[in-house]
């Protein structure tokens, strides 16, 4: 494998600041980014990425390729929880299995954003509609997770008590999805002109905010590391191998429909990433029987760092081989 990709990825400010955050926790510095500053950054990133995606989408229009990509994205997000559920059942009860499975079916916006910065650095183009794929992959996983609980967690005759309106509400209208989709639509509506006037805010300082935010992600992820000792080796292995599996499937799908390289990387990253904000919030509400530290820690302290450090350049390497 082309190690230079990994190294050049590693030597980017966002990744290095992520490590600075991790280091801070390991050496017990008292560095802290107090609430709600991280929330400000994450709202900003969602707003900016959504809006810019919308502006791009307004330019490119909705072709058949767009629709095909989005359909496949939704499909993957619904499929991943199903097969991971059965893998997880080897070790966990149905509640925890379904919650973790939903987490891995869904996506991590920051991983996606980091991948898009990686592409920009390599000057590989990608399409704005990939943001729509990002937005569409969050909800199906939540719903499939709930269906799995209902099918497998309750004994026959036991009432499931699932409050479906609440679940759908949480799946489709949680704040991440809502802000992302809303900003995307606004980007489409205001188009080129809107993109121009907001450029200094949504584009110029974007990379800097991402960098700052990843410092915090490093702090948060590292604090979760000790949780992993309790969760055991199985979950740690799962949190690395399943992203690789999902990425491989994503890659093959992307190849089969001949996606452009940039889009293919983003699609692969979406398949490989796991949600540590929206889905955990949904699962705490809808599957309170599951242990949050299992699904949050694996997604945040293992899969997220793995993807941004090794996954992204690795998947890009795969693409550079397959697309030749």
């Amino acid at each position, binding site marked *: 494998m082309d190690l230079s990709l990994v190294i050049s990825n590693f030597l980017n400010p966002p990744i290095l600041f992520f490590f600075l955050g991790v280091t801070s926790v390991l050496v017990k510095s008292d560095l802290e980014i107090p609430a709600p500053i991280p929330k400000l950054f994450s709202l900003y990133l969602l707003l900016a990425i959504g809006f810019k995606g919308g502006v791009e989408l307004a330019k490119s229009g909705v072709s058949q390729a767009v629709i095909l990509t989005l359909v496949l994205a939704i499909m993957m997000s619904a499929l991943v929880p199903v097969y991971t559920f059965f893998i997880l059942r080897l070790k966990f009860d149905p509640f925890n299995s379904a919650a973790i499975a939903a987490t891995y079916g869904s996506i991590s916006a920051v991983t996606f954003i980091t991948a898009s910065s990686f592409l920009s650095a390599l000057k590989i183009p990608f399409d704005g509609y990939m943001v729509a794929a990002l937005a569409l992959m969050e909800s199906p996983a939540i719903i499939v997770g709930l269906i799995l609980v209902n099918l497998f967690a309750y004994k026959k005759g036991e009432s499931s008590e699932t409050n479906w309106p609440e679940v759908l509400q949480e799946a489709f209208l949680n704040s991440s999805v809502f802000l992302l989709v809303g900003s995307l639509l606004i980007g489409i509506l205001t188009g080129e002109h809107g993109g121009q006037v907001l450029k200094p805010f949504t584009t110029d300082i974007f990379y800097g905010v991402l960098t700052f935010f990843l410092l915090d992600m490093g702090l948060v992820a590292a604090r979760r590391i000790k949780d992993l000792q309790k969760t055991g080796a199985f979950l740690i292995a799962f949190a690395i191998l399943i992203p690789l599996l999902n990425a491989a499937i994503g890659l093959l799908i992307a190849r089969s429909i001949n996606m452009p390289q940039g889009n293919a990387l983003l699609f692969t990253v979406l398949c490989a990433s796991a949600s540590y904000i929206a889905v955990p919030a949904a699962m*705490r509400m809808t599957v309170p029987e599951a242990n949050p530290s299992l699904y949050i820690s694996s997604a945040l302290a293992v899969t997220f760092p793995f993807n941004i450090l090794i996954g992204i350049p690795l998947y890009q390497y795969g693409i550079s081989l397959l697309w030749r």
Partner: protein
Amino acid sequence: MNPIKRIEIFSDSFELGKILTGLKKAGVTNCTVIRHVSGSGVRGSMGDDIDMLLENDYVIAFCLPEQVEAVVKIIRPILNKFGGSCYVSDVMEVQTMNCVASK
């Protein structure tokens, strides 16, 4: 000063809506909410540092002694399902224009 009760509820942030609705149903419309408190309980231990992903809210409501039973009845199942805890204690109210006992 009137003897009344202080009800304190600690819960996950996402339960706040349910809890406020529950209090209202029990006839307790006034309360104070301290948001974004950190905590460690049965379901998530924060170790030595503080974790912002599992945020709690802290609800304080002063009410008449006879309202406590109704509150407990409504709140207990919510806490049993989603986690959190609830405590009741005695307190004297200073009578002002809008005090609990005057309603």
